[in-house]
């Protein structure tokens, strides 16, 4: 059997010592789980090693940790896969507690202080429509299939561990809790979609603090894709519930929508004023919030203009596509935004198809649209 070196980050607050690394060598088959290795260390070398685990089947969500820099479950990470991220290219596996949460001991973090508090923040239960029916609610099948992805969450905290927005802003509600919010906002039985979205969109550390870094998508052992759920929440907040938030989130999105239709390519100089001041007649340029931003940007704006990075001409007259191409872009807008219902494809639900031609009837055929 091959040998693996487990380098484990240790910490015991009771001793008053700083965290340190301990190293152990264990024999394992490549297909065995990192957790098996950790438990072997605990049994053979040091019974005081702190680790949380239970089911060993990627169901209970207890053994979230960082393995060679990657957040995930120790019970469903095979040692043979873990060493692919080894720092020195050997059979070294570095094991650390999850990030963004305080360490209680060794690999055990305080989930209550961060993860559960944030989940609690989004009112994670159904606020049922009244009156409650005597028997069950009848809902369309598709709407429940739609929330199955967020229901797959096992609360392991892997996404919270490596959330880059939370690293910079610890108050950010974060990926796990926002995915949980979608679970109820996507549920037709819930009565308070508007209030929930309004609350999340206007929180200064809420819906619009996600930086779109995809960390949570790769971290999640259950394919919940929290970031995709956050994007869906933004879609619902801005378009279906018309929430104009205090964080410029909806205005920023609208700025892109308007500018790409107007010019085909993005006029960056126009994004900032529209994000702060909206898409009104002055395109946000005279809004007090914009003015404030211009003043705070002076340290670099001046340099950028001076060095030919930005040209005054480009700021005033944005670059754009040729007329005929712009007409095509606008025709796409008209066709797509003219639909009664947004067409969305969730690959978690539909999966990837084999090669082949479409067999089902299409929306465009139904509408009798012309080619």
């Amino acid at each position, binding site marked *: 059997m091959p040998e693996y070196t487990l380098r484990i980050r240790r910490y015991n607050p009771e001793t008053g010592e700083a965290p340190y690394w301990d190293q152990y060598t264990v024999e394992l088959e490549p297909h065995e789980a990192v957790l098996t290795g950790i438990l072997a260390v605990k049994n053979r070398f040091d019974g005081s090693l702190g680790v949380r685990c239970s089911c060993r089947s990627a169901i209970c969500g207890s053994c979230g940790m960082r393995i060679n820099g990657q957040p995930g479950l120790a019970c469903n990470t095979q040692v043979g896969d873990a060493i692919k991220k080894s720092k020195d290219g050997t059979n070294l596996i570095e094991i650390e507690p999850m990030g963004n949460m305080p360490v209680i001991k060794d690999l055990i973090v305080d989930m209550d202080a961060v993860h559960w508090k944030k989940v609690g923040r989004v009112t994670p239960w159904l606020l049922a429509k009244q009156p409650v029916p005597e028997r069950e609610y009848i809902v369309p099948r598709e709407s429940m299939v739609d929330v199955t992805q967020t229901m797959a969450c096992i609360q392991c905290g892997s996404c919270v561990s490596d959330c880059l927005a939370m690293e910079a802003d610890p108050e950010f509600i974060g990926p796990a809790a926002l995915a949980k919010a979608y679970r109820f906002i996507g549920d037709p039985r819930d009565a308070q979609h508007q209030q929930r979205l309004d609350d999340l969109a206007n929180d200064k550390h809420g819906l619009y603090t996600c930086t779109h870094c995809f960390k949570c998508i790769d971290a999640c052992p259950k394919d919940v894709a929290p970031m995709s759920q956050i994007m869906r929440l933004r879609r619902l907040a801005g378009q279906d519930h018309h929430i104009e938030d205090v964080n410029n989130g909806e205005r920023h999105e609208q700025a892109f929508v308007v500018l790409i239709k107007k010019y085909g390519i993005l006029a960056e100089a126009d994004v900032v004023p529209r994000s702060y001041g909206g898409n009104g007649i002055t395109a946000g340029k005279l809004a007090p919030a914009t003015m404030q931003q211009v003043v705070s940007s002076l340290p670099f704006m001046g340099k950028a203009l001076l060095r030919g990075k930005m040209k005054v001409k480009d700021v005033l007259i944005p670059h754009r596509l040729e007329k005929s191409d712009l007409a095509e*872009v606008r025709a796409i807008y008209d066709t797509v935004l003219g639909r009664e219902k947004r067409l969305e494809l969730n690959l978690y639900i539909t999966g990837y198809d084999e090669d082949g031609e479409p067999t089902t009837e299409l929306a465009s055929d139904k509408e009798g649209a012309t080619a």
Partner: protein
Amino acid sequence: MSTKVAYWPGCVSRGFTPELHGAMNLVAPKLGLELVQLNRGSCTGAGVLAEHNQELTDTLNGRTFALAQQVDKAEFMMNICSTCQGAQSESQERLDANAEYRHEVNHTLAQFGLKYEKGIVNKNFLWVLVEDIGLEKLKSLVTNPLTNLKVGPFYGCYIVRPVERLHINDENPRDTYLPMVIEALGGTVIDYAGSHKCCGFPIVTMNKEASLKQAGTHLTDAQEAAADCLVTPCPLCHLNLDMQQPVAAKAVGNDDLHMPVLHLPQLVGLALGATPKELGMNKHVVRPTSIIDWSETVIGSIPA
């Protein structure tokens, strides 16, 4: 023999970072790349338009793909922006995954006589350097090795995650390419905490404090690891790391931060004999030309 590619420059490279587009045009012939620019393509939506409407984004990107597929004898499509790569890969993933959905998008494109055929190969310049040009060839083209230049890699989120969508795997470990390129050009790689993290740019108008803290933290980490400069394949990262650097420095209380940030084609161009000025390096807010002694590190290091 040059390789013909359908070239998508993106918006920012022709707007706020004109030096990037210029540098790419300058290094392409040196690398044997013939760029056919897709002037008719539209903004990829940068992730924000997809947040508004997936089908709108996918149809606009499908149109650009269809235009690229019309370029005669082009071997693949290439971009110079991590964010363009990510946004286009997201659209492509949906278009390629589902025939019914693709048919729907093509139905819209048919009004302009366009059609997207499943399976376009669309690569960032970084991937092209390693997978198509090859590190050995790149090494052989170096005339001014970047000796003594300590370079920190900064990828941009959209080009390293999610790994499945971007086809990052054992065969193509695309999230490890920047150090390989830096070394092939003769430079020294600086390992620091922020190389694969977020620059903060996407939330600069929504949570400015967190955004600038992200940029400031990564720049400071690189500074503490003794980097001379950073290199990035993403012009949006460049905006937060270079243009906003004076305010990002303030956000993290670093009053001695002067970290030049190079676009990837600029770094390649230097090693292939172009001057900092030709590569537009004087256009940056943090001027690499005034901080690094190029006569020592690059210009003076031509091998005997």
